[in-house]
């Protein structure tokens, strides 16, 4: 399993559909968690959860599209797959505008379902990975001296050593020393890496 520790969270009001999907996905090797309505899913939601949510649109109480929007609002980054018994364009549009990974019509095509879940998992792991590297980068940034930080900002903006030296009233040689130390502290090899990481902030 490339995504170990990733769970499929099924939110579906129809007990048979929930049970059947749970069984099928469980046999496919996915850890599955099942919820009978949107409210209970929101209650149990924890920030460390990884995987994707498979949400039915039509449910008594809070419907699937509202749940999807709520998840975005509270900053939950679990990707969402929406499923519906009648795929009207309007709800598909809303699902995709709220960044649904896929919009599946019932009865479900299992190949598409698995593909959507895989896509959602890689989507989530990518998000998590970029989050991780950003957190790491942030802690490293804190180790920089104010001068090194100034030099970094200008390097990222695309200034040459000579221009930086002039702007900070120091010699180009000193700029080079600051820059080397800054790159070393941030653990980046090239200016291009530096720019990429700092833009992710």
């Amino acid at each position, binding site marked *: 399993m490339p995504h170990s520790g990733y769970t499929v969270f099924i939110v579906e009001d*129809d007990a*048979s*559909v929930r049970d*059947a999907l749970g069984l099928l996905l469980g*046999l496919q090797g996915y850890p599955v968690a099942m919820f009978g309505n949107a409210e209970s899913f929101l209650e149990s939601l924890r920030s460390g959860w990884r995987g994707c949510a498979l949400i039915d649109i039509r449910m008594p109480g809070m*419907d699937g599209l509202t749940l999807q929007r709520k998840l975005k609002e509270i900053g939950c980054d679990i990707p969402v797959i929406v499923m519906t*018994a009648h795929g009207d364009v309007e709800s598909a549009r809303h699902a995709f505008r709220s960044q649904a990974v896929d919009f599946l019509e019932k009865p479900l095509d299992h190949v598409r379902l698995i593909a959507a879940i895989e896509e959602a998992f890689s989507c989530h792991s990518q998000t998590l990975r970029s989050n991780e590297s950003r957190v790491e980068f942030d802690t490293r940034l804190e180790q920089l001296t104010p001068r090194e930080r100034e030099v970094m900002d200008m390097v990222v903006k695309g200034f040459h050593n000579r221009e930086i030296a002039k702007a900070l009233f120091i010699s180009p040689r000193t700029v080079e020393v600051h820059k080397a130390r800054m790159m070393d502290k941030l653990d980046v090899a090239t200016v291009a890496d530096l720019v990429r990481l700092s833009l992710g902030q």
Partner: protein
Amino acid sequence: MQTESTDMIAQVQRLLTGLAFVAAYILLDWASYLHPMYGLNITPWNPSPALGLVYWLRVGKRSALPWFVAILTGEVLVRGLPATLPLTLVSSLVLMVGYGFMAEAIRRRSDGDILHDRGHLLMWLVVVIVGTLITSAVYVSLLFLSHLIPVRDWTVAVLRFWVGDSVGIVVTMPFFWLLFDGRHRLRNLLRRRETLVYVLLAAFMLWVSFGFGAVGEFQYFYLLFLPIVWAAGRQGVLGAAIAAFTLQAGIIVAVQWQNMVAVTVFELQMLGAVLAFVGLFIGVVVDEKQRVSDELRQTLRLAAAGEMAAALAHELNQPLTALSAYGAACGQLLERGENGTRLKESIARMVAESNRAADVVRRLRDFFRTGATQLERIALGELIASSVSQFEHKARLQGVDIAVDPVPACTLLVDSLQLQVVLRNLLDNAMDAVQTQADGKRHVSVHTQVLATGKVCIRVRDSGPGLSLAAAAGLFEAFQSSKANGLGLGLVISRAIAEAHGGTLVAEPMTTGGLFLLTLPVEKVDIDAA
């Protein structure tokens, strides 16, 4: 060999039919040979051409020869050859050609069904009147040129002959036509008690109008309209044809019985023709209305079924989703070599899900077949909540505020799927009605109240432009839609569903906002819960 013998049987059959036709024609000619002018074929009532026309409509041009033979034989047998043989041959030919043209015109214009609608009926009447006028003018002129009719009587003779033929055809042709083309329908009608009753009424009215009124120039003739209008109103054109024929036969009997003079009989014939035509016309209109109403009912049934199908499609998709997932899971289990309880359990669930799907299909089929409803006990609150919840998302998008007042705790015995169609329809309309209002002024409310009559009244109200009195009245007519994309059937179906449940659905005309009242009988008021 086989085809030769069947050909021969067909030919013999044709010959026999022709002979039977000739015999019937002459018999009719003989029976109606009353009050002739100068011993000629000029009588106040001449129904035999009607028989000829029906024969022509059935077999086409082949009927020309037997018809000619019948006319000629009639001259010889019934009237004893009043003119010379060559003249009789020529005059019979004139009649034959005239009737032939009429028959062909009717056949081509009406596809053989003269009583189908008002257009066919009027066309038939015009052809008969114009055709007989031309035929009688030519026929009488021929006799006149042969000095069989005096100069001064030409007009009178033409008039008599024309009226005799046209009245004979108008009054009897529909009946003959029924005898040959609608025998099955005719037999059904004759078996009904109502038919007997109006025939008896006709006989009684004949007795009244001729028993008392003959002296006063048929002052009670209008009484004869009662049975024919009754027959036409109840049984359509078939009833009118039966009644017209009965009345005509009765009039002829009465005329003979009272020894009326030819002029009186002639006037009576005009009245009889009007009587018959009024009856036929009412009958055709009644038939047409019936046909339209049948078609509309069918359309409504289909539309209602369509609404049901949309609701059922959702219901059907759930078990199908579960079924296919269980099926795929079973495949996985088998691949792993499992054949224990897990597999058995999954298969049992598949069976349960297919039963659930079959249940939905059965309900749809029942609705198509009988419009049958699947009654179940359901809490009113649940019903309303599930209908309203389907609109929450849409309402939020369109900035509509839907307020549901506390629902009294009671149980209904209804088809929840059908009632959801009704409530969805009402809410849909309310949502559309408030579209034109400004932001913050789009309100829809659902208020529920248990009435003293043991019914519950659900009021769906909106802050839209409201309904005028006229609009509220026309709202429930099919195809009356103010929406560009609507067929206007939603409310018609909703009302039909409400009424099928022993309830009502009405629109209240109001100047501010729309209001629909859906009343349904309550199965049980849950006092302890309330």
